[in-house]
């Protein structure tokens, strides 16, 4: 009786032990590894914060108008950004290596997916960032230009520019991610050709008159300003 019990217990414990024998070492190693990577990440972040003089980069970001986009008051500091990125990168690598130690199907697939997807995610992110930056830059130029040219509705022109550029960026990013590329591309074509069609229809259906009238009134305004301007020297 006791023997059977013993055997049963042994069986259970043995099962657990073998399971543990299979899983425990990788878990311990993984936790240990992760801890090491964590310490390394903290150290690297600390080191980068001290060592990277981001002043130049800060100025570059500011000169290119990127800081204004990333933060509302335009105070972006490169050093914490770089240090933070390095910190998270190291942690991620640590986690991936730890996961791969388990060598099960699930973990392997997770690791593979991350390694495979990561560059694409970064690329897509960069495309979106560049798109946002370009959209902002172009829309502001368009705003000031249309305003100075006294075209009607400058803000709408600017908004349209922004939407167009952002849309192109989204299409490009989805292309990189392989995420429903055809849907986006088709939408792009439809929207673009729709806009052209609408514009040409408007021009055909009496819109042309409106445009001409508008241009004429602008000419008149200009002429009537000339007599004043001629007496007006700003410099």
């Amino acid at each position: 009786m006791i023997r059977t019990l013993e055997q049963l217990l042994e069986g259970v414990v043995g099962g657990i032990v073998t399971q543990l024998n299979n899983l425990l070492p990788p878990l311990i190693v993984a936790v240990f590894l992760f801890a090491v990577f964590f310490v390394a990440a903290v150290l690297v972040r600390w080191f980068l914060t001290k060592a990277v003089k981001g002043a130049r980069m800060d100025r570059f970001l500011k000169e290119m108008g990127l800081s204004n986009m990333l933060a509302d008051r335009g105070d972006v500091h490169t050093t914490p950004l770089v240090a933070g990125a390095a910190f998270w990168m190291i942690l991620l690598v640590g986690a991936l290596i730890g996961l791969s130690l388990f060598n099960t199907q699930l973990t392997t697939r997770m690791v593979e997916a991350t390694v495979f997807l990561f560059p694409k995610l970064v690329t897509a992110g960069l495309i979106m960032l560049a798109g946002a930056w370009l959209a902002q830059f172009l829309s502001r130029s368009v705003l000031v230009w249309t305003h100075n040219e006294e075209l009607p509705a400058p803000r709408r022109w600017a908004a349209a520019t922004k939407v167009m550029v952002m849309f192109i960026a989204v299409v490009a990013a989805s292309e990189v991610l392989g995420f429903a590329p055809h849907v986006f591309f088709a939408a792009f074509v439809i929207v673009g050709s729709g806009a052209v069609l609408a514009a040409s229809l408007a021009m055909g259906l009496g819109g042309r008159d409106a445009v001409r009238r508008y241009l004429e009134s602008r000419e008149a305004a200009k002429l009537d300003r000339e007599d004043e301007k001629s007496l007006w020297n700003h410099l």
Partner: protein
Amino acid sequence: MLTGFPRPLQRRKLVKVAVPKNTKQIQSMPAEARQVVDEIRHADIVVGIPSYNNSKTIGHVVRAAHAGLAKYFPSYNGIIINSDGGSKDGTPEVVTQTPMQDSQLLLLNTPMKPVNRLSFPYHGIPGKGSAFRMIFQMASMLDAKACVVVDSDLRSITPEWFDLLIRPVLEGGFDFVAPYYHRHKYDGTITNSIVYPLTRCLYGQRLRQPIGGDFGMSQPLLNRYLERDDWETDVARFGIDIWMTTIAVAEGFKVCQSFLGAKLHDAKDPGADLSAMLQQVTSSVFLLMREYENTWRGRTGSEPAALFGFRYDVGLDPINVNLDRMLTAFRKGAEDLGDVWKLALRPDTLAEVKELARTAKPGDFHLDDELWVRIVYEFACTAKSSRLERATLLKSITPLYLGRVASFVVETAEMGAAEVEHRIERLCLKFEELKPYLINIWFGETPAAAAPPQSSAPGAEQPEQMEV
């Protein structure tokens, strides 16, 4: 031409040695100009006249120059150089064919040296600055003691102007002679509302017409200009005047002004785009501000610059302004351009501007001095740090500027010249008073600088830092 002039040969050699060091300078000079320089070799005084389609007026200017040199500087070698920007109306022909009617002057002042008249097209970016560059190069190679430039659209220029612009250089030891004119109260509003107060407050010299366009210069100053490599920026266009003046005052050259009477000149080309002009001028001012930040940081207050000439009052052409149109522009700007303005203006400044635009009425419109100064300072600081969007940013100033002009027009509607001058003086003092605020936001030392200081006692005089 050089006969009887006791100029030692080695001096001329020195010039020839000195010039090739800047090969870029020479390359940008037209071959015919170089040939003439080789032939003439030396001139004491160079009169430079930039022109672009000025055939109607340039004859008068050339005659005045000729008479001025003959009457006031008979014993000097003078040369008149016209640098033409490709006029289509025969301006160069007028220059070389203008009959000299002032022969009685020649009789009065013997012996008289021939005055050369030359007319060249120049190379480089079209614009007044490029024209000046060629004139300066020639003056420098000719080893001229003094160089004077005058606009070719001047109708009120007289021979005395040349005496007034040249003599301080030749006999007074000055390096830079700025003009001083009587102008209508609404004439020169960029000068009165931005350029004069700002340059005065930054560099501490009260040059009333820093962008007048008619200047006298010494050779050292010319050489300094030629050394620089920013000729192909906005300086090449309307920025040239402020560029010349700023370098002279910032680098400690000896500056003065000469009273020239009235400035009557041709109307601006009606097609000329105000926002482009404003952008060129402000971007030149702001870029130089960056270059000389260590210079102006240490200067407080301002001192009057010596003024030569006999001051008298002159009648001026009336100027009509359309207040409604300016206010509309201001209001529309506030509606449209908030997105761009917020890059430059701090939130409280922007809020004030918007509130003002919302309540603007022609009768009692008033854009406060202090608000205006803050606007200018904040734009200057943003222009410094946003290289890419600088042009867009500076082109968006126009409605703000028109708002300020509108306010000035309302305020000075009933005022005479002296009162208006007083009013401008008050604005200048406001600029000087708020200079600590500028220093704060420019150098970004105190993060708490967001609120402009209400008043500030003039601090102890700091030593000037001249290294740049």
